[in-house]
């Protein structure tokens, strides 16, 4: 009789461990998928910026300095990609330069008549939004995962099953705002 009770307890603990393990794996995978989505969108931004600069540079002849700064920031970001420590600040600088360019373009009404420009501007705007949303979703996923592994009773098993805490992505002040580009 007592053997059966003992066996029952062992099976119950085993099932509980499986549930905790699967839950944590699911949460960690979701966060990792979210992180790779950020990379996809950053890459897309690197590809778009030279095209946009190319089509606006004639109309925006007096803004050579801004354009050069955007290209410079873009090249720095491309060079830094793959290096986690350098990539963060480089991408933040690129965001700032891009937002500056998008805002400045508002001063050139003739650009709005150019379909090509409008199309690239929309693409850049959506890419900026996707970067912000992908980071937001990454942080939400990491928060959910961390909460799960710190909650009782999962906290008893999480560390010994090899689930460490994950780090949040810290957004620089300038990037907290979703870019507001008045486009209709």
């Amino acid at each position, binding site marked *: 009789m007592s053997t059966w009770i003992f066996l029952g307890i062992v099976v119950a603990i085993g099932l509980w461990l499986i549930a905790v393990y699967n839950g944590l794996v699911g949460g960690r995978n*979701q966060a990792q998928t*979210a992180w790779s*989505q950020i990379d996809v*969108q950053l890459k897309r931004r690197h590809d778009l910026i030279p095209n946009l600069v190319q089509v606006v540079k004639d109309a925006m002849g007096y803004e050579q300095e801004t354009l050069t700064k955007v290209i410079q920031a873009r090249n720095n970001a491309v060079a830094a990609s793959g290096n986690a420590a350098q990539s963060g600040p480089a991408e933040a600088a690129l965001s700032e330069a891009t937002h500056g360019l998008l805002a400045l373009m508002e001063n050139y009404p003739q650009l709005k008549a150019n379909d090509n420009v409008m*199309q690239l501007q*929309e*693409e850049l*705007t*959506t890419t900026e*939004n*996707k970067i912000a*949303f*992908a980071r*937001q*979703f990454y942080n*939400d*996923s990491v928060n959910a995962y961390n909460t799960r592994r710190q909650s009782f009773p999962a906290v008893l098993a999480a560390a010994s099953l090899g689930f460490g805490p994950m780090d949040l992505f810290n957004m620089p002040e300038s990037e907290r705002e*979703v870019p*507001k*580009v*008045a*486009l*209709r």
Partner: protein
Amino acid sequence: MSATTDFVAAQNQNRRNTMVLLAVLTLLAGSIGYLVGALLETESSGTLPAVSQVGIAAAGLMAAASIGWSAISLAVGDRMVLSMAGAKAIEKQDAPQLYNVVEEISIAAGVPMPRVMVLETDALNAFATGNKVGSGTIAVTRGLLNALSRDELQGVVAHEMAHLRNLDTRYMVVVGVTVGLIALVCDMALRTLNWGRMRSDDRKGSSGGGILIIVLLVVAILAPLAAKAVQMAVSRQREYLADATSVQFTRNPNGLISALGKLAEKAAPFPGVSRATQHLFIVNPIHQFTSKTPALLATHPDIEDRIARLRNLGG
């Protein structure tokens, strides 16, 4: 509604309210099944049993019928909605901004990209349909595309994405089927009742049956109305929930607030929408509800109230 809430608290509250309403609906359906069964047993045996076996069986039958009917409705429901006048699927080049916004919000929500459709009408409206995460459709009207700014469109699309992620189509199909079943059984019971009363008048033997008949008569008349009211209350809770979830996705209540303002101003009746699908839209496509409309039978909360709650989320 005085204290400022965050979207997480708002979502939890809406989910709790939905669960309470679903419990009420289940209870209602179960009691009607039991009453009908009990009456049948009384009719055949001539005495009122303390616990009616037939009643319990009938309650179980109600549950089984509800599940089976829901499954069938879920399987064919999407097609019914999408065959509605003028809805056609678009690719990115047809409406790049709309497509981009849907893509952005699907990243924010962490769900696969849904199908995007445009309804060729000047009315301002949008809807979402889909039974499981990953196979949804989001449709907006041409009028909406023309009238809204990018931020406003983002708020509306986020509201629709919230319906998809919260599985509201599935919720409303199951609730609708249960309500339909209650109406059907009550209708049948009322017909049976006339016949039953005539028979018991002949016999004069079953006074217990007489009480039961009166109870069933009252229930059969009131239950369909109560079920309908519960269904509408669930629908309104899911709207509030979708508004709160929309803010979770965009972190910007202002887009949806200003979009709802425009929708309230320019809401026009929408051709080709049946009552069965009206709860899917961001604002009711058939009636324009104001704060003066009797709220009990409205599919959507009044727009001013929705805006007030969104402001409360810290816009």
